[in-house]
């Protein structure tokens, strides 16, 4: 039975001048993730407006409210769980009715969820009484649904409904606490229609191995891994069910079709795994916290807003999974929460977030920036790229760090066949894949336009190539003497060494065993060149192929990538070989190992230059060439081992394997020593600190 309290409510409203919150500084800073997962500050999309508190409305304070449902007419229902009632209100804070506190069959006990059909029928997840209750639009009890009888449900199954929605047929989808089989589906008559949309347990090699190895008793003691549970659900106009799930790190939000298939997280590039929430979670006791999405709401254009209880923030995504806004947080200022439990929104875009511990519903309004972004993303998602460009340009004007805008404009330009401009925008947005696609088209256009130039260029290169080869042949005929390492000056001999390492590796490794200063200096120069080439090629690589940002490249780290393996290998190889009676001296091993980088030095840089005119679809070529170079280096390594130590092939392979193991052992020991020295150091420092206090 609904109690009409509007008179009292109206009176209260006149007497109570609750101010609208006006912020000069929001308690949460606006930020957005760019494509590199940096977090530049951004304009806030949502700001705190005001709160709805039971106390102000003279219906008594809310007590642990847990769910809010916004009906089609923009009135909303609050599951006031602690007070065992459902409160029906409108946007003007008028109380339109209360359900569930009357004695009788309709008396509720800790109702945690509420859903209202188009016709106004109210369905309540009456958790304390373990049933779903159906009230008519006037708030009168119609019937309830208890645990269904079904052979499919085993006797141990507890029916504890916490959330419920109805689809157009009247089928109920129920989140039952503790049910890992999925959502409980009931037909309108209350019979069981099966489980819906279960989450899957991910495959884990460790688990498989453990199960394989463990004995029967041990297996019984292992915690059984259950599929993660649903926490909440939402139904959109087309009848798709959005779900939120605890305990998983990707695809925490799903959009389930009628047959339970997730149609939201379709992302080829990432294996159909999308991560929702903050990429960087707070750290507690040396490990990062897990997010816990407790609710989701979706507007008419498919924009998804999900609420994470761990960070207290709401995250808003468009239909394609692009992050639009982040707002909220935990704290004791208006705009922050203690325990956000549920989220809903009205047609005007106002967000309603229920705070379970603070017993109130906080409202957030959109900023002009959010309105503009919503306008742009709506057109974009509908495929109207050209039309979307204008609002996106305005978005960039308002906020130059909003990468999504650049990406969208880039795409629009691509569709409009302005490939060069598209590339500029996509580069700013760091959209490598999009850039590459645009580049493919741009290259075609470029080649077509400047065909004559390109053709002439190829001919010139061919002629030059022929000329150089002929010149080399002539010079080679002149030098009939085998490679002399001692004569002709340092530079000549080093170049000769390099040339020989490249073209005649077998001879080279024989020759290297002779004395000569040039070989050590040559080795060092090759190493330095290798480092330089590495850094340069990382810098010059075409945008589509870049894996690192220039500022992420540390000179030191790249040098270590070359010098580290070189030194480690040399030490390990010499050690292993000496034990197994190899003949190579350490100096020879060291310098010989350096020269295996010659192919790297010669070819990596040209390859990097070439990637500037290639696209991702030609990835195979680039990959192939790179692998060829690496194989060449591996061959050189093997040859070196064999020749310098004078092994036969079989032994050389065996030694190489041992050397690799040796490298790991050296690294392990190195780490150990490093740790010990660190400990000793910090002990001494702490001792000093403590002493300085007491003296």
């Amino acid at each position, binding site marked *: 039975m609904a109690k009409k309290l509007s008179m009292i409510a109206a009176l209260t409203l006149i007497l109570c001048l609750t101010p609208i919150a006006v912020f000069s500084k929001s308690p949460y800073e606006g930020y957005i993730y760019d494509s590199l997962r940096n977090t530049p500050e951004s304009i806030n999309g949502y700001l705190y407006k005001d709160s709805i508190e039971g106390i102000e409305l003279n219906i008594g304070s809310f007590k642990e409210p847990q769910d809010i449902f916004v009906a089609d007419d923009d009135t909303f229902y609050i599951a006031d769980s602690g007070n065992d009632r459902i409160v029906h209100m409108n946007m003007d804070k008028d109380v339109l009715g209360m359900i569930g506190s009357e004695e009788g069959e309709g008396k509720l006990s800790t109702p945690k969820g509420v859903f209202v059909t188009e016709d106004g029928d109210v369905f309540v997840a009456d958790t304390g009484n373990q049933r779903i209750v159906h009230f008519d639009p006037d708030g009168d009890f119609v019937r309830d649904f208890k645990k269904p009888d079904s052979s499919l449900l085993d006797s141990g199954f507890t029916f504890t409904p916490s959330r419920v929605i109805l689809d157009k047929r009247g089928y109920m989808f129920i989140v039952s606490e503790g049910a890992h089989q999925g959502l409980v589906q009931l037909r309108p008559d209350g019979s069981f229609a099966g489980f819906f949309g279960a989450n899957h347990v991910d495959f884990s090699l460790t688990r498989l191995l453990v199960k394989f190895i463990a004995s029967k008793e041990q297996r019984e003691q292992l915690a059984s891994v259950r599929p993660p549970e649903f926490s909440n659900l939402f139904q959109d106009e087309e009848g798709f069910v959005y779900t939120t799930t605890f305990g998983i790190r990707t695809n925490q939000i799903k959009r389930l079709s009628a047959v339970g298939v997730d149609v939201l997280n379709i992302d080829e590039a990432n294996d159909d795994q999308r991560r929702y929430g903050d990429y960087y979670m707070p750290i507690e006791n040396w490990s990062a916290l897990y997010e816990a999405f407790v609710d989701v709401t979706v507007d008419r254009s498919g924009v998804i807003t999900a609420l994470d209880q761990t960070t207290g923030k709401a995250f808003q995504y468009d239909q394609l999974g692009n992050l639009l806004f982040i707002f909220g947080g935990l704290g004791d200022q208006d705009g922050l929460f203690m325990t956000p439990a549920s989220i809903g929104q009205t047609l005007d875009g106002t967000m309603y977030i229920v705070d379970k511990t603070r017993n109130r519903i906080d409202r957030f309004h959109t900023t002009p920036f959010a309105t503009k972004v919503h306008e742009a993303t709506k057109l974009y998602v509908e495929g109207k790229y050209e039309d979307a460009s204008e609002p996106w340009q305005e978005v960039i004007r308002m906020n130059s760090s909003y990468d999504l805008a650049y990406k969208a404009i880039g795409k629009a330009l691509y569709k409009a066949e302005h490939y060069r401009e598209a590339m500029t925008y996509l580069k700013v947005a760091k959209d490598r894949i999009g850039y590459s696609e645009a580049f493919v088209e741009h290259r075609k256009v470029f080649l077509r336009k400047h065909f004559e130039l390109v053709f002439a260029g190829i001919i010139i290169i061919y002629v030059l190539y022929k000329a150089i080869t002929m010149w080399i042949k002539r010079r080679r005929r002149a030098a009939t003497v085998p490679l002399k390492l001692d004569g002709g000056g340092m530079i000549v001999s080093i170049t000769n060494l390099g040339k020989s390492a490249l073209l005649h590796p077998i001879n080279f490794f024989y020759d290297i065993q002779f004395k000569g200063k040039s070989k050590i200096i040559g080795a060092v120069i090759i190493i330095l060149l290798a480092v330089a080439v590495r850094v340069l090629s990382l810098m010059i690589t075409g945008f589509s192929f870049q894996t690192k940002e220039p500022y992420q490249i540390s000179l030191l780290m790249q040098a270590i990538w070359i010098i580290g393996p070189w030194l480690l290998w040399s030490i390990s190889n010499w050690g292993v070989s000496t034990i197994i009676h190899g003949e190579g001296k350490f100096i020879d091993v060291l310098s010989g190992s350096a020269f295996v980088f010659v192919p790297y030095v010669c070819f990596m840089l040209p390859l990097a230059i070439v990637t500037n005119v290639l696209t991702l679809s030609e990835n195979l070529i680039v990959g192939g060439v790179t692998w060829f170079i690496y194989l060449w280096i591996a061959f050189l390594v093997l040859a070196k081992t064999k020749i310098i130590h004078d092994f036969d092939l079989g032994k050389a392979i065996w030694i190489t394997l041992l050397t690799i193991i040796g490298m790991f052992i050296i690294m392990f020991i190195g780490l150990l020593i490093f740790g010990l020295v660190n400990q000793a150091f910090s002990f001494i420092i702490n001792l000093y*600190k403590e002493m300085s206090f007491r003296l």
Partner: protein
Amino acid sequence: MRLNIRKVIGYSIMIVLLVVFILIISQPPEEPSASETTVKQETKEIDQFGAEDLEIENDRYHLYFDGRYGSVHVTDQQTGVTWDSIPMIDETVPPNNRRYMSSPVFISYTEGKGDSQTYPFKEGGTLSAKLVDGGKAIRADLVLGKLQMSFSIEYRLSEEGLDVSIPFDSIVDGVDKKLVAIELMPFFEAASEQDEGAIVIPDGSGALIKFKENHRQFFYPYSEFVYGSDQAYQKHAYQKLKKNKSEILSYGPRENIALPIYGLYKTNKAFLAVINDGDEDAKINATPSGIRNIQLYRASTEFIYRNADNVFLGNSGEIPMTLSKMIPGDRSVRFMFLQDEQANYTGMAKAYRNYLVEEVGVEPVQDQDVKYQLRLLGGVLKDEIIGSTFVSMTTFNQAKSIIDQLMDRGIESLELTMEGWSDEGEFGDQPDHFPANRKLGGTNGLQELSEYARSKGIDLYVTTNYVKPFNKSDGLRKSRDVIRGLNKEILKVYKPYVTTKQASNEMYYYLKPKTVFENYITKEVDSFSELGLSGVQLNYMGNTLYSDPGSKQPTNRIDTLNTWVESMDLMRQQVGKTSVEYGFAYTFGHVDQINNIPLGSSQYFFADETIPFMQIALHGLIPYTATPSNLRDDPRIELLRALEYGAQPSFELTYEDPVLLKRTMIDDLFSSKAAEWLDRSVEEYTRVSEVLSQVSYEAITHHEMLQTGVYSTNYANGIQVIVNYNETAVTVAGQIIRPYDFIAEGGTDS
């Protein structure tokens, strides 16, 4: 016998180590960490002091000192209204609370491991009172037997009301138990839930905690430090302090206490308390009804005598440490009593304004014309693979061209502040500011800009940072210049990540005030005056205060405060003008402008309304500007707020597109390109200055909420500004105000 040298050395080292070892063991540690089990004594709590009843009076007021409780009752002799320092206590209140509520003070003390709060009746306290100062003051001597502490409180009457002070030489500290804080008259004029009115807390611009019968559940009281917490104490500077540096949690955006005031108003009666002495180490407490089961709303000030921090020593974990020496100085509060029309927050703010003018001697700033407040960013460093490059955002020549473009659009009154102008830009080698960056035009370029500005009648300021340098700055000497925390180590200040608010790797230091003044400020002031600038903005001096507890010569916050004020005076004298940000009260009278003044409160969920207390006190006295308009979250609302509070709009622009700032340390200038903002900003400035220029020298005489989302601000010359924050139009006195719009009435234009 030939002595074996090696043996001799060996034995002597052994002996030395042995001696050192014995010394370490025998020396008691400096901080008393006596963890003796406290024997449970029979706490005989007494109900009354039994001191003499005394009276004093002046022309207006009459003070009655009740010797039973050490309470004071001040009556206005003309109107008969009385202000009481303890409330009427109901019979139903349990004895513990009754003694608690009738205490003249609360005392916090420590035995080395954390604080305990108590009151005299609980500690066997005795109170004796006598008339001093030729019968003009009452001195109450309080002896707390169990704590072995004693101190005196003096009460005097003034023209506005009551002055209460604690003379420092009267304080005798305990032997094992050391004094941490004294909270004066905690229940002064405490209000019941039935009273109509509110507590005024100085949170940002000001906030109200209203008295209500049906109130929300309050979990804890408001208790914040005046002028922000002492930043040298990490326990207070951060929300959560942890050993793992990556887990240190900072506070999110919130306001600080800029004014050392608090008060409350009821129907027809109010008081405003201003901390006269000891404001640099004090807290304002406001306790709503329900805490400790006491159904009263109350506010008070708590004077801090010792600060404490949690220190991490090696693997020993978290150790609480307290400052060993008390913070010296007399403490005093002035209570100003207000009645009838003055008994509301506007009246209280006006009383504070009078205090500033009469007592502190703040003179109105000469030049308070409304100007187009332009801030330009010069440049900042960007890390590259090898080294770093300087990203130039606005050269001095480009600044000139922006000035020209603005003047072409009709702006006559302009003020320019250059940021990030020194050698390595915004986070460069401060506190070493010279030379000016070459790419921007060098010191010569800056001088030319200054001359150009002068010729056009434009004020040119530059920003300086003598307080919080970036840790990679080459301009300082770490061991000599940086403050140290209680653990005697150089204090590291971490900037939090915007996502988790936990510490990132971006690190800053705080500079020792005396050192920075002698070695940097005095040395550079001539360079500034030679440039011909109009003024200097002293960053951080208006909103950051810290002590230096760990250096060889430790200093207190008062020393830092004095150095900041000295710097402002020096710059004013030698260069021309100074400005600060935010505006802590000690800067009043020493600055010509306050930038980024708080235009709101932290909006703690236990407070009810934000009020422009600070603005009512300052408008017409010191000009202040709002946060840059191009960096607003919601321009409609924030423009109205700036207008409602009488703040001049400002714009933080760059010549170049801010997209160039990606990957630099400046990531919050999301929209600043001058070309895009010129027309918009001129439009806003023209619209706002139309109103504000009519009132720029006037005081605010009244402020109130007319309807939900509609506020009115009245000025001394009769002008009234009404703002409407609603999404719908409203009607006020027959006039329609459109949504997100305002009207200005009265004065010459209607």
